């Protein structure tokens, strides 16, 4: 069977003859149906890049798995929803949404009878889903038996298997699943939802799916409206844009998914979860909490309203899928050696540069080259400690040509510096050399901001303490997209952006409002725009 949704997948379109009886009467309707089907196929024909995923778990194995993990809800109504989820009626919920990829529970190493029952229920569901041109991937949890999961997945015509959790055998488990599939003459996709650090290190599979992404929010620790402030005085935000960007830097066009699950969120938090991934060019694996799923199962009006709003957000970003193809617009590059010993700190550096609204692009260490540095004014290379001779020469040349290189102590000449870092002239440029191999990420981000100067970042944002941004452009640099996501529960008014460059128009896009033009004010460096109010998310396209 050709892989559903894969580039070689052919879909299941029937042939319609113009000579069929009643064709004239049915023609307009057929056109409509054909258009809808074609659009569905086109999304899937794009392969994994076009998949819009949701964690669609249920059935007896899911009950077993969550019981084992002690996450099964106590409320019998909620438990029953989990057990009964694979009723064909739940597929109707997907109508009007762009979701076209279901992650269904497949195997968890339950007793044979439970596993059999799961396969029976899901196999029926897969057939129904395929009729709707929906890709179905089976979730395999730790405890599952690789050969059995692979063979049964092939028999059920699943489109792939996804390993979700900590598998002691690691990638070996995936290989055995692939072998089992191959034994059945199938080549369905197999990939894990795994840690960012492992994805940085291995990065295999058609999809890079992160397990340790965070539920996006302003983190609240104490009573009332108090928020936890970081050293900058801003509230602390759990966000994932930097995770997506770091993976996209090495994904080679493969999609990046975020796998975090909800923790009793309010309706608007789901919208933030969608936007948090999408603005950076990724996708959140839509995951619903038990209460919401039970409400959907029972078709409760207020829950359906929340679902439709979530669908509107998903649709918004899929309607602007071309935004994913834009590249970071930044004069600052961070060389990432994510597979190094200090990957956690590498991540925190990216996080804090994002938090300070310093546009950056990531250069995977393996891709570091003179060409990759083109258009860059500052390179943060503390992850290269020590650099290879070739890297050292390349960065020295970059500084000599007028750039700023921020590097670690292996660059120091003479005695160790007594200050956190020292600045040395290097040709027409500068080298900022840290005395510690692992500078504190917060200090580093602040130091770099001062070394570069706010006015030279290409983007300055004001009144954005609970907001994070994404700044990208096309290859010509003439189309620039500023994405903004408000992580707080309240709207922010008068967000001002000063953007370097010449632009003639600025259009404001939001999932919850009509497109509108923003007035452009010229500034010495470029233009200034004011977004009157930001409820959750918006994007400004400048041309």
């Amino acid at each position, binding site marked *: 069977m050709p892989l559903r949704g894969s580039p070689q997948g052919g879909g299941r379109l029937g042939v319609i003859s113009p000579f069929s009886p009643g064709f004239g009467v049915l023609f307009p309707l057929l056109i409509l149906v054909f258009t809808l089907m074609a659009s569905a196929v086109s999304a899937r024909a794009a392969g994994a890049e076009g998949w819009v995923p949701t964690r669609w778990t249920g059935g007896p194995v899911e009950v077993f798995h969550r019981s084992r993990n002690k996450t099964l809800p106590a409320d019998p109504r909620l438990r029953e929803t989990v057990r009964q989820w694979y009723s064909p009626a739940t597929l109707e919920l997907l109508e009007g949404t762009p979701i076209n990829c279901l992650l269904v529970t497949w195997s968890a190493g339950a007793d044979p009878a439970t596993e059999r029952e799961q396969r029976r229920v899901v196999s029926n569901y897969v057939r129904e889903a395929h009729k709707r041109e929906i890709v179905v991937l089976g979730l395999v949890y730790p405890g599952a038996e690789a050969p059995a999961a692979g063979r049964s997945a092939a028999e059920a015509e699943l489109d792939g298997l996804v390993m979700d959790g900590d598998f002691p055998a690691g990638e070996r488990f995936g290989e055995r699943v692939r072998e089992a599939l191959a034994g059945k003459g199938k080549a369905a996709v197999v990939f894990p939802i795994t840690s960012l650090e492992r994805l940085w290190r291995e990065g295999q599979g058609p999809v890079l799916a992160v397990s340790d992404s965070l539920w996006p929010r302003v983190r609240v620790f104490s009573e*009332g409206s108090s928020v936890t402030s970081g050293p900058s005085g801003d*509230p602390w935000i759990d966000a994932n844009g930097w995770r997506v960007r770091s993976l996209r830097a090495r994904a080679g066009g493969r999609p990046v998914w975020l796998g975090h699950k909800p923790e009793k969120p309010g309706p608007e938090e789901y919208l933030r979860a969608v936007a948090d991934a999408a603005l950076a060019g990724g996708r959140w694996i839509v995951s619903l909490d038990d209460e919401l799923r039970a409400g959907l199962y029972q078709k409760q009006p207020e829950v359906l309203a929340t679902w439709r709003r979530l669908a509107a957000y998903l649709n918004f970003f899929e309607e602007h899928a071309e935004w994913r193809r834009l590249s970071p617009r930044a004069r600052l590059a961070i060389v990432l050696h994510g597979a190094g010993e200090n990957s956690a700190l590498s991540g925190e550096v990216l996080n804090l540069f994002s938090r300070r609204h310093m546009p950056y692009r990531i250069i995977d260490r393996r891709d570091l080259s003179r060409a990759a540095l083109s258009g860059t004014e500052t390179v943060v290379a503390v992850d290269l400690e020590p650099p290879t001779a070739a890297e050292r020469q390349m960065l020295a040349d970059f500084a000599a040509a007028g750039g700023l290189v921020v590097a670690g102590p292996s660059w120091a000449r003479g005695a160790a510096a007594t200050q956190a870092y020292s600045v040395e002239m290097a040709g027409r440029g500068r080298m900022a050399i840290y005395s510690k191999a692992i500078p504190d990420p917060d200090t580093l981000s602040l130091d770099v901001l001062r070394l570069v100067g706010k006015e030279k970042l290409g983007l300055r944002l004001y009144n954005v303490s609970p907001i994070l941004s994404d700044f990208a452009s096309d290859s010509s640099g003439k189309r620039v997209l500023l994405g903004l996501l408000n992580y707080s529960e309240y709207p922010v008014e008068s967000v001002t952006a000063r953007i370097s460059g010449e632009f003639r128009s600025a259009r404001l896009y939001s999932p919850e409002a009509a497109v509108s033009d923003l007035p452009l004010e010229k500034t010495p460096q470029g233009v200034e725009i004011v977004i009157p109010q930001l409820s959750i998310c918006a994007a400004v396209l400048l041309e």
Partner: protein
Amino acid sequence: MQINRHPTRRQWLCGSAAAVAGGLSFGRAGSLFAAPPAPAGVVSIAKCPSYDENLVAELGAMFDQIGGIATLVGGKTVTIKLNLTGSPSLRYGAYAPGVTHYVHPKLVGACCHLLGRAGARRIRLVESCWASADALEEYMLDAGWNLKALESAAPLVEFENTNALGQGKRYSRLKVPHGGYMYPAFDLNHAYEDTDVFMTMAKLKNHATCGVTLSLKNSFGTSPASIYGDDAGSEEPNESPRSGRGLVFHNGKRGPARCSPQELHPDTPRHGGYRVPRIVVDLVAARPIDLQIIDGIESVVGGEGPWIRGSKYVRPGVLIVGANPVSTDAVGAAVMGYDPRADRGTPPFRDCDNTMKLAEAVGIGTTDLARIDVRGVSIKDALCDYEAHWRGKA
């Protein structure tokens, strides 16, 4: 006037007698008993429930009630010290800073408009921005302010961050006429000297160290962190300050940059409740405040900003305008439900000296409500019991 660091028993008794007569209990300001009564100002109070009211009309009427501003500001440079305390990013949940611990931009705009209409030649908005020497305009943008609205409110509106040298070429040394409780003089941004009229726009709120933040306490922020900040240079100013003034002013654990006048009495208590009220009075004496506006339309109780645990939003719905900072603050404190002559240990001065009484002691103005000419709404009708609000019993 010389500071009397070690009063004799006779002086102490005389001072005590004066204190009884005038409700004072401070000896450090010198021979208080010999001083003439501190001047009493005219203060106007207005009820104003919202920033959506016609603030130009409200404020204009209040200016008229205290005698009008045309003579004071006509053809002059007017500098307004705003209260924009703390980083603009620190907020009370959903509230914009202007409706809690900052003065509100609409009120600033209305004030600028009235000053311009009264003939002010130049209006300069100033504040020492928290831990920053960046432009004040950027600080305001970070608070969500509409700069263009402010700029268009009067013919010439300028902005200056006075936390460092700013647009000046040198610091202005302003002496404390009474000799100083703590400092004999201060080096301040040029804006505080290069002006004909100095106004303050404060917020009606509590302060963790000083009990209340009104027009007097707002002058604490005239001092540049480049010289008085934790990271001030030891010898020279640090023109990129990144800290507050905790070590120099609050705790006295270090001195200001040596290029500037040093503390008079290093042996005095290193306690904020002792130091900060006295430093505030010294600053106000060095740079007198000609006109005061207190924004009590919306505010906070229990502290001066969101970093004070337990502080919270309140809506007093009141504006106060006056021409003597001690009298204006005395009325402000009374509107908050406090006795403006309360001693240390009495709310809101639980662990601090009363700044207003310290200012009164050096002759800046009176705290005696009976001598203050209150116009517009009465204190009783404007009352908003801050203690009750803070305790959740309002």
